């Protein structure tokens, strides 16, 4: 076959590091997207849940007769309908309870024709409770003779963790300075704009289809099955567009099996959707903790040890919350070069709401402590604060005491970049000197940094992903991937990578990733892993497809294989860019021949990392990354209000893939972190939530977002796609202690129990003045 060469050469370009829009952005911005919350199926019933509304009680009697008789009600379920169907990490939960252990315990559920009828039916359920004394702090739960929250867990003891490295006593003796504080990170919740929602439907073969917001569709089946007493293989998970997850959808929560139990009972699809108030009360929280931390250093500023004794408020059931010590200890041992480490954590059952995973997963809480103690030590040692940080910053090639291998470590570069961009050292000195001067408004600057896994986290034995990719007869590419899109932007990353490898327009790439019967296996969206893991998986699959396409082209065109490349929608001569055949024509010819050759490839990618293991000594991620935030604030010393004037960010991102997505993730991460630092707080009194609404639970709103000065440090990760590392949790992790350190710089006060609300700040400043006068 002859080669016609008429078109102009196609120059080599790259999409890596460009700004690429999220494929679903136009539909989301214009309101076209149909979220799961909008979905209506034929014959669908509405399920509603009766919550206990009290923290600890026996159910003496529950009478559902009147509710069941209400016209339009199709099923009423109570604890006896879920008896024995235990689920959860330690099998301590059940979809419908026969005993109340926390305020939002689900004690009955109805399915009815409309939400109105379902609500009326709930009002008709007559329950007699016998209230029991409860425990509402981990200290109270751990006390001798405390009421038991879970009968099978004596002493209210849930999970515990320990890691020791080196001789603590000797390290303490060798320390010239030791800081010793108790930090009390609080309860906050995810506040997804789309409230929790699931739609369940059984067919007559006993197979369940569940439309849900999950961010881990495959292990989800394993976790949901015991709550229903069915085979996990009989569950099909469909993931419609959702309004946020942030870690809250990394487990099964009772509304999901409740929807399924109601569907089973009625033989019709049943949708359970929370109101905003129900969402506040019944969705998971960030893990609250009490962290007793000590850090030592020598006079010359070399860290000598760090110890952490952590009590976790487990809440009434065990989800991901109490597993956060897995990451807490990595930060305790790996945030700067710490030669001696002593970490222990104990989770204690209480009658409070229970915690799930939440962006930053334990590291938000730990960094709030470690980064403030670094700032305290910086004031004690004989060297400049920045120098103190640099002196203890790990370098490429170092291992942490837990054997995290810092193959490419850019902590020092992050510190230097952020400090230079914000004029940190000068301002820190100047503001501290101005503390005692008259004036109502005080300026402060605070630096914080942290480390986080950036190449997945092998908490399971595998941390991999399956990818299938086909290129059809119009040269349109379909990527069938295990990677879930929960708003984080993996859709844009996958599209960009396919377009980069195959030289096709971004618009010619379609992603199929919402049906567990179609897409291959993956362990879910968590641990900042998806760009790293799915990015590698996509790239590998695309490379396989490319090899097949170029082989076919070489054969068809009679050109040497090694001279060919895909570029601008054509097969070109790599050296000069001369187009030889349009990709679309080539693919059509491959399809339409006597022995057609279809482009269909598959790939399984497993990152180069080690399972976490019981001893917690393993290189559990294929990459690690650091970020430095420098917050500049103005404090009204009378009202206690903190205005964040600017945040300078320097983060090791490995390599920028989609610049726009990266910026968005950092901005969003900081918004969540600022809420944690300044305003968000679940006000729990005796286990009851007092502010289940956005009026009184204060998210950061647009006018409060400070200007951000973003610096992306490209350390070029050997394992990551094009050198990229995972990026999305660090922004949430680092900002709060940067603000806390800035508050100290401005006013001399430190607050160990976030949020730094105006009242708390005003009170601390007022009390400090009283004490000083």
């Amino acid at each position, binding site marked *: 076959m002859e080669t016609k060469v008429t078109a102009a050469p196609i120059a080599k370009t790259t999409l890596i590091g460009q700004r690429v829009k999220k494929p679903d952005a136009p539909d989301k911005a214009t309101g076209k997207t149909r979220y799961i919350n909008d979905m209506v199926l034929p014959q669908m019933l509405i399920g509603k849940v009766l919550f206990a509304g009290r923290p600890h009680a026996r159910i003496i009697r529950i009478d559902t007769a009147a509710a069941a008789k209400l016209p339009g009600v199709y099923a009423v379920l109570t604890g006896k309908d879920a008896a024995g169907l235990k689920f959860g990490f330690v099998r301590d939960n059940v979809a419908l309870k026969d005993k109340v252990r926390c305020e939002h315990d689900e004690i009955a559920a109805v399915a009815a024709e409309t939400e109105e009828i379902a609500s009326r039916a709930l009002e008709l359920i007559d329950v007699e409770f016998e209230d029991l004394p409860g425990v509402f702090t981990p200290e109270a739960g751990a006390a001798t003779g405390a009421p038991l929250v879970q009968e099978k867990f004596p002493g209210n003891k849930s999970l515990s963790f320990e890691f020791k490295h080196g001789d603590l006593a000797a390290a303490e003796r060798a320390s010239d300075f030791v800081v010793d504080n108790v930090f009390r990170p609080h309860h906050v919740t995810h506040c997804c704009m789309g409230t929790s929602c699931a739609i369940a439907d059984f067919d007559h073969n006993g197979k369940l289809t569940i439309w849900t917001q999950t961010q881990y569709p495959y292990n989800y089946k394993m976790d949901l099955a015991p709550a229903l007493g069915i085979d996990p293989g009989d569950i099909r998970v469909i993931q419609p567009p959702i309004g946020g997850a942030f870690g809250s959808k990394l487990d099964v929560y009772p509304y999901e099996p409740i929807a399924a139990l109601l569907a089973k009972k009625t033989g019709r699809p049943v949708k359970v959707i929370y109101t905003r108030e129900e969402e506040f009360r019944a969705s998971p929280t960030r893990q609250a903790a009490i962290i007793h931390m000590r850090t030592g250093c020598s006079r010359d500023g070399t860290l000598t040890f760090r110890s952490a004794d952590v009590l976790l408020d487990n809440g009434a059931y065990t989800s991901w919350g109490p597993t956060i010590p897995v990451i807490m200890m990595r930060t305790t041992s790996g945030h700067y070069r710490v030669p001696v480490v002593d970490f222990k954590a104990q989770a204690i059952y209480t009658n409070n709401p229970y915690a799930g995973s939440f962006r930053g997963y334990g590291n938000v809480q730990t960094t709030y402590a470690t980064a403030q103690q670094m700032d305290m030590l910086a004031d004690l040692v004989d060297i400049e604060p920045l120098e103190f940080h640099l002196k203890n910053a790990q370098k490429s090639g170092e291992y942490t005491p837990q054997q995290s291998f810092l193959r490419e470590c850019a902590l020092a570069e992050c510190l230097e970049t952020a400090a230079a961009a914000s004029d940190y050292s000068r301002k820190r000195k100047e503001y501290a000197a101005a503390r005692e001067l008259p004036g109502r408004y005080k300026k402060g600057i605070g630096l914080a940094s942290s480390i986080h896994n950036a190449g997945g986290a092998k908490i399971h034995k595998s941390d991999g992903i399956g990818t299938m990719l086909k290129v059809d007869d119009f040269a349109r590419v379909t990527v069938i991937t295990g990677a879930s899109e929960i708003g984080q932007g993996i859709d844009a990353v996958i599209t960009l990578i396919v377009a980069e490898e195959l030289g096709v327009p971004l618009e010619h790439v379609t992603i199929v990733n919402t049906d567990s019967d179609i897409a291959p296996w993956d362990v879910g969206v968590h641990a900042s892993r998806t760009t790293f893991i799915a990015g590698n998986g996509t790239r590998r699959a695309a490379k396989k497809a490319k090899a097949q396409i170029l082989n076919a082209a070489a054969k068809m065109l009679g050109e040497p294989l090694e001279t060919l490349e895909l570029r601008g929608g054509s097969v070109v001569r790599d050296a000069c860019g001369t187009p030889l055949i349009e990709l679309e024509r080539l693919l059509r010819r491959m399809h339409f021949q006597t022995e057609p050759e279809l482009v269909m490839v598959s790939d399984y990618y497993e990152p180069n990392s080690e399972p976490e293991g019981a001893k917690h000594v393993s290189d559990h991620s294929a990459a690690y990354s650091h970020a430095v935030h420098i917050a500049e604030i103005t404090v009204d010393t009378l009202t206690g209000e903190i205005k964040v004037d600017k945040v300078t960010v320097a983060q090791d991102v490995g390599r920028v893939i989609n610049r726009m997505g990266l910026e968005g993730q950092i901005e969003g991460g900081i918004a969540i972190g600022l809420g944690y630092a300044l*305003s968000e707080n679940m006000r729990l009194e005796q286990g009851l939530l*007092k502010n289940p609404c956005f009026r*009184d639970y204060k998210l950061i*709103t647009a006018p*409060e977002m400070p200007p951000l000065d973003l610096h992306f440090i490209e350390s070029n990760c050997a394992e990551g796609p094009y050198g990229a590392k995972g990026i999305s949790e660090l922004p949430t992790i680092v900002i709060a202690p940067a603000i806390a350190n800035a508050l100290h710089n401005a006013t001399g006060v430190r607050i160990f129990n976030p949020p730094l*609300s*105006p009242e708390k700040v*005003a009170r601390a400043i007022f009390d400090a003045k009283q004490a000083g006068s």
Partner: protein
Amino acid sequence: MQEISSYLAPRRLDQALQAMADGAATVLCGGTDLALQTESGARHYKAKLLNIRRIDGLTGIEVKADQVRIGAATTVSDIRGNPELATIAPVLVEAAEHFASEQIRNAASLGGNICNASPAGDMIPPLLVLGASVELACWRDGAVQTRLMPLEGFFVSPGKTVKLAEELLTAVVFDRPAADFVARFKKSGPRPALEISTVSLALGARLSNGKLSEVRVAMGSVAPTPLRARHVEAVLEGKALDAASIAAAVASAAEDAKPIDDVRASAWYRGHLVRVFVEEVLNDVRGN
């Protein structure tokens, strides 16, 4: 369940008042409080839902030589954007600036903010220092009857006023402030938008030759109703505005503010903020 048997949206005031005459109508204007309260169960709809938004003459800001009249259905946005008010009663515009959010300001009415009788109602303290009165109308003896009463006596407790169930608040009126009238409004909350006041404070007075007279100070969120701070006023009345009188005013603030602990703030913080704001607004006026 709440059952609304009829929905009315009359054009004329007399029609509305006749519908209210049996005391069985829920008045709807902007709905920004009503919708939330009925949704949460804190309030229940009566049999009739009466939308007063379309009533002729219930909306608008009328500035006369001696008096200002604002129709009850006038939105907070209208007040915020009114150039005449910005000149003669900027304290009211200032409060409108800090009211909730753009969307809520566009819907919320002045009359609704008053009748909701929240101790944190943002428009109330500035109206109290302007010496405003409210006009109440009802249908009696086959005719529209109106009465005018000082706003200060209007509030009974959170959500409760002296207005009768058959009465409709139709307008707010206040005397056109004198040329030497000065006023300030302060509101606290941790964020710039969508914030329910932890504490609010308004000051209004005549300032002539450095001396204060006809002093009015109003506070929000420090008691079950918005209130006039009589002790602070007495301390300032007839005094020169100087460091000593400001200190005395700050010291007397606790006599007026009797805050409580709640989910939004402690009593200590509210009391503290009141002192801070009294000092701030007085210093601000003194600086001018």
